[in-house]
């Protein structure tokens, strides 16, 4: 049984359920409590759970994220919101050193069961500093886990997995998905947990594999429809969901089936998740490739503000279709 639900509400439900399940779960961040969250993801939680469990912080990302890491070493399970994931830049040391390395440097004596979450995307005309897409950046640090849900159901399920995971998990949401709707299993139908490390075949196809995560998955699905209707091309769409751990098997499987891949990634062209996926495919499915792997990424400049052109800087269905046609 399932019901329709907004992406933001699916995340809120995950938080609410985990707050209920484990008294050590605490939600922190700027404006998450009394203001209900800048993007209303935490709406109502402060009213329900009070000041101890839902905590407003000052604008001190290094301070409060480090604080959460420290508390997590004592068994607290902070779920910390970055109002934008872009603000990772002022908390970077805490995110990549203290969270990622403390376990290792202590020879495994410590673990850091934190979640850091918030939106990580372009497309809302907020300019260069507010539009970073850091999935690949963080996945590059062993010790960290990263996921990026594309649908309400995945958002809920991955968030619950992230909170229960005993390692630091960085959940990259998307402001443009918060208001999208999708089927989510009923709360009383049992725990809806989507494990980290499991990709999801969002559309079956035979001619080419579109591999993506986050909002790019939605673009791929739209592109696949156009390809089918206008060009008779049957594209398969694989949603990575989780970047680290990464479902390499699912990636190789779809490529072995279609023998072609277009990777869609909101990162800029140098690096990103897609460069890594490309390398893995050519390394492990070399003989299955009928053509070079190509990518659709964000045009390689800082994010432009202008609403007139920002969508053209980002991956979009048209750019995906063009890239597929160029290959096929």
């Amino acid at each position, binding site marked *: 049984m399932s019901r329709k639900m907004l992406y933001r509400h699916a995340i809120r439900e995950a938080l609410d359920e985990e707050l209920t399940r484990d008294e050590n779960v605490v939600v922190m961040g*700027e*404006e998450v409590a*009394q*203001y*209900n969250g*800048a993007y209303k993801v935490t709406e109502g939680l402060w009213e329900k759970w009070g000041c101890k469990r839902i905590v*407003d912080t*000052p*604008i*001190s990302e*290094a*301070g409060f994220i480090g604080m959460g890491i420290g508390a997590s070493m004592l068994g607290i399970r902070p779920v910390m919101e970055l109002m934008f994931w872009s*603000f990772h*830049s*002022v908390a970077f040391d805490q995110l990549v050193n203290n969270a990622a390395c403390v376990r290792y440097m202590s020879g495994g004596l410590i673990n850091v069961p934190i979640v850091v979450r918030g939106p990580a995307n372009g497309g*809302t*005309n*907020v*300019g*260069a*500093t*507010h539009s970073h897409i850091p999935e690949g950046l963080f996945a590059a640090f062993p010790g960290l886990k990263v996921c990026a849900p594309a649908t309400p159901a995945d958002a809920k399920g991955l968030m619950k997995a992230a909170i229960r995971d005993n390692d630091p998990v960085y959940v990259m949401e998307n402001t443009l998905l918060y208001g999208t709707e999708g089927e989510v299993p009923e709360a009383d139908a049992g725990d809806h947990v989507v494990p980290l490390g499991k990709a999801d075949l969002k559309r079956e196809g035979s001619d080419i594999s579109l591999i993506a995560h986050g909002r790019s998955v939605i673009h791929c699905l739209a592109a696949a429809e156009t390809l089918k209707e206008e060009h008779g091309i049957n594209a398969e769409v694989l949603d990575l969901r989780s970047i680290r751990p990464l479902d390499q098997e699912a990636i190789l499987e779809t490529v072995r089936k279609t023998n072609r891949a277009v990777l869609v990634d909101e990162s*800029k*062209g*140098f690096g990103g998740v897609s460069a890594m996926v490309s390398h893995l495919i050519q390394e492990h499915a070399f003989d299955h490739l009928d053509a070079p792997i*190509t*990518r*659709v*990424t964000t*045009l*390689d*400049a*800082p994010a*432009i*503000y*202008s*609403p*007139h*052109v*920002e969508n*053209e*800087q980002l991956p979009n269905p048209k750019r995906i279709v063009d*890239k597929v046609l160029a290959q096929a």
Partner: protein
Amino acid sequence: MSFASEDSQKLDFAGSPVNQSLSADDKIELFRQMTRIRRFEQASLKMYNKGVMGGFLHLYIGQESVAVGTISLRGEHDHFITAYRDHGHALAVGMGMNECMAELYGKASGCSKGKGGSMHYFAPDKNYWGGHGIVGGQTPLGLGLGYGLKYKELEGCALCYLGDGAVNQGAVHESFNLAALFEIPVVFVIENNGYSMGTSQKRSSSFRGCLAQRAEGYDMEWDLIDGSDLYQVRAKANIAMERARKESKPSVIEIATYRYYGHSVADANAKKYRTPDEIENYKKNHDPIRLWEHRLLDEGVLTEEKSKEIDDAAKKEAADSIEFAENAPAPTVDSIMDDVYWESDNDTEASKIGRHFFND
């Protein structure tokens, strides 16, 4: 929320030398500047609500005296930098409404070619260095402007504005220490409008006395200013600016002010975390433009008529800027790739070696 003016004894700063030296025209000009800012922003609000702009719109309405008062003191080698609530400073340094409005529209003739938007106005030719979106992130840059002045042995100062919420960013602390240690001619101006988004000052900062007093920890001078009194803003800011220019010593000044609107236009809670009374009280008793207007009427410098004329002109200028912006060309998709590297834009030898851009 506390206004310095409500706690402290009312002193009259009209007699301070820097105010004494103002001609009647100068005083009217200050009024005109504040009025222009307000009318520009009201116009931009109207158009934002019509959906013609993207992103955020952080209005400065209520705070005009801060930008106008401090920037009115500028000398040739004074430089300015602020956060994302940057329209007031932009107009005060002399940017035109057209290029500012066109920027909001994301047009190619915007001040930043439509690349920066509301949060990123720049006019280096007017010593205005933005417009920055990361809270507190502009503070080291402001320090650096002062460093540059000192390095070049120019008599000037850098004014670096930041919010009451921004003071709790690490970069601000590092900048304060560096400024004091290196004796940099910089004035950090805390525009304390009482809130960082929905968080009141007392929920974001622990402090003794006031935020500016933290300067003592760095052995730096500080002052607290009532932003609703333009004479006071000028008198006290001038002391800090002169300290920078003449002694190469930094200061922190905190200016108590208020914003009428939400944090940004998208702030749906603006009336939840602040009582209507609080907002009304400011509008009625502390509005810097109305207080200045009355002051000038009292002084006989301004007439009701002249005031209306100025206001009408400002409104018209704002309306014209909308028309300009609407008719301005949008950036092309190709232009997305400009302005990334100076070397590429200038087609230098260096820009031709190796692959600079990684578009798929």
